[in-house]
């Protein structure tokens, strides 16, 4: 015997390659393993309103690049008459609208579709604020330093310092110093300035709360405080610590969110809706964006894709035939005819398909027995049966249509030539070996076809076969492995059951 090692290596190689491919698609591109999985998608719309003064207008809006905890699936702008473009300077991604002449109220829209994702993303760490640049005023400086000294003495780390400062800035009865500071700048700005004076790296970040169906939402301001590698969010108005789970960070670079040149009274409002989209569509959007995987079936036109979907199920059917023949030992008329019948069942549905198939074979056999009396050559006879089968299918289709049954129309999906040959061989089998053998073989074929159909028509199998090309390799490895199975078939255990009494003899 030759060494079996290369064989096992081949089987294992195919299997592993298939599983790895599946894993890449599952985890790299988030293709769901089960059909019907849904993903949460947020459609966020930013509206910029302003009054144009009649001069050239330049509007610059900060937009999120890859917001933490989300993946941007798509984005677009709606702005009649405006030129719009996305620019990416070092201070973050921005949309810029421009127009030579505009007057009166203007509204510009930016829409983005965001996918909630579990992959954590790191926040950028923009340059720390320069201390003392917020307000260059002696009274402000003195108040700030007093407030800071007090808090510094009662704290041990950047975070605890922040907490102390926030307690001073948010308590109901404000101190004189705090009141002075807050009269000149916002909570967030004051906090960042104070922390910068203490050498603590803090930045203002802005975000919106994602709440389904909300409109006219404004940006919320947070302060991100850093301590080495760690970062903590603080709400400067309430003093609450931590980053809310439903907060979408819109601007994290400390740059101005909205800049309008040539307009006044600008406002920025957000509205958002939550959608549940089939996970598959989402991952297709992701895969399409990737040039490498764009080579996949999903890049084909829809019609070809539907055809491919059926093609990719043929290996599954072939696998079922292999399993049923090698491990069970079912006899079929024509090795892979059951797969073709199963494919036809997928069009007609099982309930209509099985009776139609039996009807077709029975009427075909009956016709064939008449044709045999004409004493024809084989090729003519089979051709005559093919024509008769086509005629039968036509007749059944018209009849069932007039009886209001749509299933009859699907009959044309039956492989007519194959069925004609089957009828011919069955008829010979009938003459030579009797009806019993015909029933055994037709029944075996039908049983195999039904089992293959049930597997091929399974929503999960369909989904996996179509979306995970790696499955084909896994099937190939199983088929190849089954090809070297030398054990008994299930039906042989019955065939040789009579041998049991020999056990006592020995």
């Amino acid at each position: 015997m030759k060494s079996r090692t290369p064989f096992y290596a081949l089987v294992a190689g195919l299997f592993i390659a298939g599983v790895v491919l599946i894993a890449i698609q599952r985890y790299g591109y988030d293709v769901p393993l089960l059909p019907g999985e849904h993903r949460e998608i947020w459609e966020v719309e930013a509206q910029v309103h302003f009054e144009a003064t009649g001069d050239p207008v330049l509007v610059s809006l900060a937009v999120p690049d890859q917001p933490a905890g989300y993946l941007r699936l798509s984005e677009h702008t709606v702005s009649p008459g405006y030129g719009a473009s996305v620019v990416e300077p070092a201070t973050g991604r921005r949309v810029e609208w421009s127009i030579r002449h505009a007057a009166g109220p203007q509204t510009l829209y930016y829409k983005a579709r965001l996918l909630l994702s579990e992959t954590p993303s790191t926040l950028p760490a923009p340059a720390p604020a320069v201390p003392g640049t917020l307000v260059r005023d002696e009274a402000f400086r003195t108040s700030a330093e007093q407030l800071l000294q007090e808090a510094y003495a009662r704290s041990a780390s950047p975070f605890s310092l922040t907490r102390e400062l926030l307690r001073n800035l948010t308590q109901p009865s404000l101190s004189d110093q705090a009141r002075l500071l807050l009269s000149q700048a916002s909570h967030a700005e004051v906090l960042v300035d104070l922390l910068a004076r203490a050498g603590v790296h803090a930045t203002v970040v802005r975000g919106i709360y994602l709440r389904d169906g909300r409109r006219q939402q404004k940006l919320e301001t947070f302060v991100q405080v850093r301590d080495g590698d760690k970062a903590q969010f603080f709400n400067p108005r309430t003093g609450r610590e931590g980053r809310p789970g439903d907060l979408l960070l819109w601007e994290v670079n400390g740059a101005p969110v909205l800049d309008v040149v040539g307009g006044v009274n600008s406002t920025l409002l957000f509205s958002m809706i939550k959608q549940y989209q089939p996970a598959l569509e989402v991952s297709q959007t992701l895969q399409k964006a990737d040039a490498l995987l764009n080579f996949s079936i999903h890049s084909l036109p829809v019609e070809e894709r539907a055809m491919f979907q059926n093609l990719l199920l043929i290996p599954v059917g072939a696998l079922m035939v292999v399993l049923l023949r090698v491990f069970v030992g079912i006899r079929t008329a024509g090795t892979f005819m059951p797969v073709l019948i199963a494919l036809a069942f997928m069009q007609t549905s099982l309930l209509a398909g099985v009776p139609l198939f039996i009807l077709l074979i029975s009427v075909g056999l009956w016709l064939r027995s008449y044709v045999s009396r004409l004493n024809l050559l084989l090729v003519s006879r089979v051709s005559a049966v093919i024509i008769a089968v086509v005629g039968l299918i036509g007749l059944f289709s018209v009849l069932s249509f007039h009886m209001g049954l749509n299933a009859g129309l699907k009959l044309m999906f039956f492989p007519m030539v194959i069925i004609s040959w089957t009828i011919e061989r069955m008829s010979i089998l009938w003459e030579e070996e009797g009806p019993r053998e015909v029933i055994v073989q037709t029944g075996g074929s039908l049983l195999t076809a039904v089992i293959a159909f049930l597997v091929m028509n399974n929503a999960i199998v369909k989904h996996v076969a179509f979306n995970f090309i790696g499955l084909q390799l896994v099937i190939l490895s199983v088929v190849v492995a089954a090809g070297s199975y030398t054990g008994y078939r299930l039906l042989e255990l019955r065939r040789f059951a009579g041998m049991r009494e020999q056990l006592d003899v020995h």
Partner: protein
Amino acid sequence: MFIKPGELRRLGIVGMNRRNLRYIHTYNDRSRYPAVDDKLKTKLLAREAGIATAQVLAVVRRPHEVRHLSTGLPRHGFVLKPAKGSGGKGILVIRESGERGHQKSNGHWISDQDLQRHAHNTLAGLFSLAGTPDVVIVEELIHCDDTFADYSVEGVPDIRIIVFRGFPVMAMLRLATHASDGKANLHQGAVGVGIDMGSGHAVGGVQFNRPVACHPDTGKPLEHLTVPGWSAILELASRCYDMSGLGYLGADIVLDRSGPLLLELNARPGLSIQVANRQGLEPRLAHIEQHAPTGLTAAERAVYAQRAFGHAAQDHTAAGDPAPVTDIEAFG
């Protein structure tokens, strides 16, 4: 109803998958298949090797020759066979011909036209393995040896011998019954009778996988059956290996009044022979692989098999595993 795989393995039964992979794929070279799949080639090879086969009366190769088929055929019976038929498909046995047409082995009469249609079907490849065009062989009718007169109905019994690497390992007599319509195919209802390799005595019969003691139609007890000229038959089977080059082979032999004739060779012999013999093939095949001497002539191999696999030899070994035959000199 079912037997456990472990029990079946203990009995040494070879299953279909194992037969295909372990024996047929390993020992049967693809290039040798045409010699057995085409009965005309088999006959030519057999003639070269000096092995007797049924005499060919005519060969029909083209459709226009079919018209002349019924002229010059013997009245006392003949057989139409597809050269590439499998599993006994397309074999038409005519007992006698006369005014009423041709009488089939089951007693029915058919016309010249029916005969010609059968020939046309055969030529078109209806009975051949892959549906390829075929030729019709017209053979003389084999007259069954009188020994089996009471044991076969409507057909000639044949002896199937599995020959492994030139050694006959197991044999079975196949008796046609009314249920099998005169055919000697076990799955159609023929009775399979296991034959003791040593003596040629029957060791019990099966029909439809169930043990039977008597022929179901004639009621004759099977245990009294002995195949005459057993050693010569085994030698003939051994020579089929030299002639075909197939390591795992089924030789079908009939006993004509004139002596044993090779009917056909089979590169994929079935497994029912194990049921007929109530023994698995595995121990015997393993014995040949491990212990059998090489370089023996066909006659020596036949003797070796008789001694290694005969019941007399097997009684000495407890587990049913044949013991190696050591006194090679005895073959001289």
